[in-house]
């Protein structure tokens, strides 16, 4: 059975305190790993897609990496506006499977 597990469930950081979010997956044949950001009361906003182990993508203070078993979302020197829930999703054979998300709070 395809599974996606995100950790931690919640993370509180001080502004400027770098950290990483984890997305572990077990799927039969990965055809893409997606990261989304979701603000309260809004729909998920697309951030990155990764397809192959070793691939990395960056956007502002965010950097996503991928191995054969997990993906990390690294947040460098976060700001309060980075506070959101970050969702990971994987695409095995048929449809996207989402994790439950990591709720990130960045305190000023």
């Amino acid at each position, binding site marked *: 059975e395809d599974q996606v597990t995100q950790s931690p469930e919640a993370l509180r950081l001080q502004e400027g305190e770098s950290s990483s979010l984890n997305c572990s997956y077990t799927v039969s044949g990965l*055809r*893409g790993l*997606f990261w989304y950001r979701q603000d309260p009361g*809004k729909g*998920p906003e*697309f951030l990155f*897609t990764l*397809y192959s182990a070793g691939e990395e993508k960056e956007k502002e203070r965010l950097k996503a990496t991928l191995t054969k078993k997990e993906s990390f979302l690294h947040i460098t020197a976060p700001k309060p506006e980075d506070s959101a829930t970050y969702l990971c999703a994987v695409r095995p054979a048929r*449809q996207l499977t989402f994790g*439950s998300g990591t709720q990130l709070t960045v305190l000023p």
Partner: protein
Amino acid sequence: DAGITQSPRHKVTETGTPVTLRCHQTENHRYMYWYRQDPGHGLRLIHYSYGVKDTDKGEVSDGYSVSRSKTEDFLLTLESATSSQTSVYFCAISESERTWTSGRQRTDTQYFGPGTRLTVL
């Protein structure tokens, strides 16, 4: 934001009543999806459409039906709403399901709408 709107944005209804949620896109994308989001479960696929009048079931399709008579509109219907269908519903779109890049099959990105919060009393 991708050109996706959902209506209504909020709805409160009673058990046993029919409910229809609408998703409208201005991107002319072929694929459209309905998800529900519940605490502890993440986003789960209800139904999806791969073209006008072409639909298929997702992971949690029981109690839901869909219709797509135009490229831009995808309707989700709860024939007889139950309290277990209280949730936030999201529509998503993608240009295709898969693309080919550098000789490898890649999954196309899905873009999400703003959501509809449905409460069934």
